[in-house]
């Protein structure tokens, strides 16, 4: 048996793609061919792409649900959908978009980009990364399992009790939602842990915390937020499941329970979650927009701090979803003022983007249009949020279409637009080919106009008093015309999404070859080839500034990053571990190879929840044991994975 290596100082050398070093790395890092390799890979780039593709499939499903509802609401008193069908559709639309699209698509971006942005070879826990994807996929399928039976969740995505309790909702609908959300929470939690540790430990040497891209700040802020927020919602759904299946009375007012407890637990999670699904997307813009304005972001530090501040404040505002529940006026006043202060960090970010455009030289690419369009939509969604933060005004606006308009400006404006812009921006990195720019600009205008035609009139519907979640409406309230306009806009927006997907599919094969750095961008991912090799970087770069690829031209101080020359780590799968603040190298991390264990553990875990749904307690027990054994096998110490001090 070979002796265990405990100490090694990595060699610093130059190596490019095609060199002996890179050929060795290729052999070391390459996965198995075929289906086996597909199921067992832990490559962050594969997982990231899968996250994005899966999230977009859910986006399409949620979009079709929305269009069905829009047809129903296009005219008054229509009967295309039954009330129960409508209720299941709006519930699954919300669940799908918020839980199965909005965060997963950003997880996909960050999974794909983080190690490339940070100058590393993979996430800190590659197998955990795979587990997080598989559990997300299975939880998504789980949440849809009762949809074909007409028994999908039907109480809205925030699922208020007591309508969600057994007395009023006896079918399996709510059990599917409760168990599915606990399962999905596992995926979110392990994914978040992975991001936090990856940021802390696997940045390239010299990439101190004040040099990481804003996308990294956004994602790590979202991840820390999720680690605090997700337990609240997992607990809430578990308690609800206990109420329904074990006769507990946590939320049952007839037995001393408290319906408002649900709302507190849900929104303690729900509001931070809203920031988790927008902050990384804002990071996409903060990193992409400056490249297209040909200058660094104005106010990097201010934007990074505003990102964190938004999340911190986001934990103190949940009651603004409950202004009409009869809480004391003093308490409402506090939460009202706290909610309004979120305007401040948002203003910092908005003016940083505007200043970047004003003091830069904008290049009119499709991504630029999406990023700039995003800024306007962000402001519209922001000011409507500011209006609902005012307690008495919210007593009128809440639960009307005004709120529906607001939340779609926030989620589509601040998530979908940056995501689509981000795909135009990073598509050449991931595929080696550029998307079609002329077609892309058309796509932008179809999406932008369709979006505003669909969602701006919803503000007016809200001001005309139309409550949300109504499957139809009378013809004498003035709601008919705005609803018809909304429906038309929704179809135009849907067309825009389809155009975008067509562009992506066609460009995958026929796009213009991109080269490593088509936008002449500044960060590390653009220093490697497009698409990047499986090992990301032939040598680990050494970073001396925030914009390693622009240093010579920015005249950014005397220090220079070293990109083609760096740490050679080519024995087995290795990357460098660095210190938390200053990113000084301290260990060589041995990375695990491809493994079926994440998939197996995810299957076993899903089996636990499926058996619980079917009341097969023995099955659930067996699946739990399988989950445990899989985890033991996973965590069993292996000498080959021991860290090496430098």
């Amino acid at each position, binding site marked *: 048996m070979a002796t265990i290596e405990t100490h090694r100082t990595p060699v610093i050398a130059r190596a490019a793609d095609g060199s002996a070093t890179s050929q060795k790395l290729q052999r070391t890092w390459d996965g198995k061919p075929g289906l086996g390799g597909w199921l067992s890979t832990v490559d962050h780039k594969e997982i990231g792409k899968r996250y994005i593709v899966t999230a977009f499939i859910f986006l399409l499903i949620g979009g079709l649900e929305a269009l069905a509802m829009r047809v129903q609401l296009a005219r008054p008193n229509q009967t295309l959908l039954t*009330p129960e069908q409508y209720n299941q559709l709006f519930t699954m639309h919300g669940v799908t978009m918020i839980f199965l699209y909005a965060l997963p698509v950003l997880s996909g971006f960050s999974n794909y980009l983080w190690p490339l942005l940070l100058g590393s070879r993979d996430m800190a826990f590659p197998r955990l990364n795979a587990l997080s994807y598989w559990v997300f996929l299975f939880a998504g399928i789980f949440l849809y399992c009762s949809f074909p039976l007409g028994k999908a969740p039907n109480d809205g995505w925030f699922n208020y009790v007591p309508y969600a309790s057994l007395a009023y909702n006896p079918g399996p609908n709510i059990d599917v939602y409760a168990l599915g959300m606990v399962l999905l929470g596992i995926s979110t939690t392990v994914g978040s842990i992975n991001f936090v540790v990856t940021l802390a430990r696997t940045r390239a040497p010299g990439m101190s915390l004040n040099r990481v891209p804003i996308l990294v700040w956004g994602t790590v802020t979202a991840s820390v937020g999720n680690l605090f927020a997700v337990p609240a919602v997992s607990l809430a759904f578990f308690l609800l499941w206990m109420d329904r299946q074990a006769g507990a009375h946590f939320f049952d007012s007839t037995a001393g329970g408290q319906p408002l407890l649900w709302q507190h637990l849900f929104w303690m999670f729900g509001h931070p979650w809203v920031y988790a699904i927008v902050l990384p997307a804002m990071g996409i813009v903060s990193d992409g927009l400056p490249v297209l304005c040909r200058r660094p972001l104005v106010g990097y530090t201010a934007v990074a701090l505003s990102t964190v501040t938004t999340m911190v404040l986001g934990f103190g505002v949940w009651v603004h979803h409950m202004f009409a529940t009869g809480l004391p006026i003093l308490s409402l006043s506090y939460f009202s003022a706290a909610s309004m202060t979120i305007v401040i960090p948002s203003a910092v970010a908005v003016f940083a983007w505007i200043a970047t455009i004003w003091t830069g030289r904008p290049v009119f690419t499709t991504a630029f249009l999406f990023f700039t369009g995003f*800024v306007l939509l962000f402001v519209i969604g922001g000011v409507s949020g500011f209006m609902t933060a005012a307690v008495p005004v919210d007593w009128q606006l809440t639960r009307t279409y005004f709120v529906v308009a607001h939340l779609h400006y926030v989620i589509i404006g601040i998530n979908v637009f940056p995501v689509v812009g981000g795909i135009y921006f990073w598509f050449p990195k991931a595929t080696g080919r550029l998307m079609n720019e002329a077609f892309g600009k058309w796509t932008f205008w179809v999406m932008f106009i369709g979006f505003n035609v669909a969602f701006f009139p919803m503000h007016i519907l809200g001001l*005309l008093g139309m409550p949300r979640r109504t499957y139809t409406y009378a013809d004498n309230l003035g709601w008919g015309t705005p609803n018809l306009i909304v429906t038309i806009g929704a179809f135009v927006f849907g067309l825009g999404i389809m155009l975008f997907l067509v562009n992506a599919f066609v460009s995958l094969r026929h796009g213009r070859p991109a080269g490593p750095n088509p936008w002449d961008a500044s960060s590390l991912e653009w220093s490697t080839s497009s698409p990047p090799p499986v090992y990301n970087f032939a040598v680990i770069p050494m970073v001396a500034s925030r914009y390693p690829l622009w240093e010579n031209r920015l005249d950014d101080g005397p220090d220079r990053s070293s990109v083609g020359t760096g740490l050679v780590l080519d024995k087995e799968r290795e990357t460098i571990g660095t210190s938390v603040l200053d990113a000084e190298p301290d260990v060589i991390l041995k990375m695990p190879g491809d493994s079926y264990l994440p998939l197996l553990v995810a299957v076993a875990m899903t089996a636990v929840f499926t058996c619980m749904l079917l009341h097969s307690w023995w099955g659930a027990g067996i699946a739990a044991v399988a989950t445990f054994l899989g985890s033991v096998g996973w965590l069993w110490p292996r000498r080959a994975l021991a860290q090496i001090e430098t």
Partner: protein
Amino acid sequence: MNPRVVLASSGLMMLPSALQGEPSMAYQRTFGPAVDPITRLGWGLGIISLSVIVIIGALLLGGIFRKRSTIPAAELPQPTARDDAGGMAWIYIGTGTTVLILIGCVVWTLLVTAAVAEPAGAREMTVEVTASQWWWSLRYDNQNPGQIFNTANEIHIPVGRPVRFELSSADVIHSFWVPQLAGKMDVIPGQTNVAWMQADKAGVYRGQCAAFCGPQHAHMALLVVAETPEAFAAWREGQVTESVMPATDEAHHGQLIFETHCAPCHTIRGVTPAGIRGPDLTHLMTRRTLAAGLLPNTPENLTGWIASPQFFKPGAHMPDHILSGPELIAVAAYLHTLN
């Protein structure tokens, strides 16, 4: 500037027309002290919000088109580090201005919150509202027990007097909302929330449940009829009386059918049994609508509704009854006597 002009010029033209005519849910114009300060605040914040959108939009367009012509097409300019100081000024000035406006808005908001929390004068009348899937039960309190009565879905109040509402739920969460008279207050099982409103102008105001409460959430409306104190007193006198025995044979036959098929859920004072699952029908014919605001209370609608509630309101707790044609006509004839 007139706020309505601003809103109309920003593309919200359909608002004014919606403010007239039939009972409306629009709350750009409101009619009582529980809501008027909110309406002014809403206009104020709305105008500030629209201004922010316009200003930011202009800044974006200005920034985009200012340098556009100098860029050679299809060639990326070299990145430049321009002095951050000029850029930072944007953040300082922009955020600073935002904070000043924000502080003003917070103060205004808190003042309005305090102003509408309680009525200026004493509330001389209390209505207990019990929300159920998918209708509103009303009980008018009185110190004299003989003056207490129940009704449903149509609240009468005297003009110019603050009225107190005690809100409770018989099943799930609902939300009590009459936008032209007051903001929403949720109706939550296990607790009694209190709201108040006062109508300064006589008229019929529409309300609707605002919290998702199940399949017929869309059809859970109510009306508030604000009338002169004299008209209100007359209405109240009418409501406290018991029903009278029907005069015609057909109506009498209808009452017998009602006792078998309908009375287990519906109360008509003077008739047994007196169920409470559905609305009190003692003075049904004094109401403007049927089925919680769904249908105008006409003879045809009443007959149709009794024949098939599930057609009009699928999922409602009132089942389709198998009544023969003559039975149906007899019940309707009986109900028509309930003035």
